[in-house]
């Protein structure tokens, strides 16, 4: 577990926005919007993109999507984190996956904006803590657009508004290339979180729509805002066009 104190005092230097030659090349990023897709599809997609980056010298990729009702269990999940039987889950139409990301259990579903940054940290900064901190920074800045004061909670990863958690983070790294990522509850049906102990915590989840008291639609404008925050925090240069891959976006 993290030592809470170090998170509060941790304020790393940002990645410098250097547009000269190599630095620029190192910060190129493609945006892929998958829309509403099954978790397994997005998972396979990430792994193929990761291989493209690993062997094909592709730029970073930021994958955006939403999932149907899904529970995923990270490497640190304890049996007691799932509060109902797998059979019951199935009856409720909730998919259930065990995955290699860090962290414990979480829920994905419609109305939740998911971002999977497949970033080559060899080109940015080889530092897992910095990467996790930067993802939190992206989310906090994104929520600032709604005049909300979102914050880190000492000792935990994720983003909180007052005492409620609005966004979760869990990542995995191969050869310093990241996959898995973050999930922000925008219009999420929060009832589904009662099926689990989110991240193994006795925590109350919230969503942007709950806080704002109105429906939030995940449209292109909203996704562009998130991309904008990624651009700033990671000093990314967005590349247009398709990835050099046979992968279809379906």
């Amino acid at each position, binding site marked *: *577990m*993290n030592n809470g104190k*170090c998170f509060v005092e*941790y304020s*790393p230097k940002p990645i410098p926005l250097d547009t000269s030659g190599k630095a620029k090349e190192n910060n190129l990023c493609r945006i892929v919007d998958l829309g509403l897709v099954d978790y397994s599809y997005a998972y396979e997609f990430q792994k193929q993109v990761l291989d493209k980056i690993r062997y094909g010298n592709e730029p970073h990729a930021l994958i955006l999507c939403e999932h149907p009702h899904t529970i995923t269990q*990270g*490497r*640190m999940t304890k049996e007691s984190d799932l509060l109902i039987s797998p059979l019951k889950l199935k009856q409720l139409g909730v998919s259930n996956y065990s995955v*290699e*990301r*860090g*962290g414990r259990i979480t829920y994905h579903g419609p109305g939740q904006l998911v971002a999977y940054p497949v970033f080559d940290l060899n080109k940015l900064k*080889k*530092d*897992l*803590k*910095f*990467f*996790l901190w930067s993802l939190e920074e992206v989310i906090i800045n994104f929520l600032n657009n709604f005049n909300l004061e979102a914050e880190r909670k000492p000792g935990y*990863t994720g983003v909180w508004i007052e005492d409620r958690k609005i966004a979760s*983070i*869990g*990542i*995995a*790294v*191969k*050869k310093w290339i990241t996959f898995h990522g973050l999930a922000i509850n925008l219009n999420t049906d929060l009832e589904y979180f009662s099926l689990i102990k989110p991240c193994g915590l006795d925590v109350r989840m919230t969503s942007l729509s709950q806080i704002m008291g109105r429906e939030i639609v995940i449209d292109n404008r909203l996704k562009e805002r998130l991309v904008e925050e990624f651009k700033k925090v990671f000093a990314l240069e967005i590349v247009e066009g398709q990835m050099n891959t046979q992968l279809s976006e379906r």
Partner: protein
Amino acid sequence: MTKVVLPELGEGIVKASVTYWNFEVGDEVKEGEDLVELATDKATFNMPSPASGILKEKLKEEGDEVHVGDTLAMIEEQ
């Protein structure tokens, strides 16, 4: 013999736990292949093999805590 050593994972990260060995003792591994998976609180990290050869010894098992600089395994180069 080549030591498999836990590298720096980030500022202030001093330890991780072994979550999954992809190879058994006696297996042949190639340099760069994912040898073992480690996890910090919110991140998992695949460690590539530093050399090609035979996985001679695992010094840490799944569930063990490891610190930066610790030796995880020995590879006998071929």
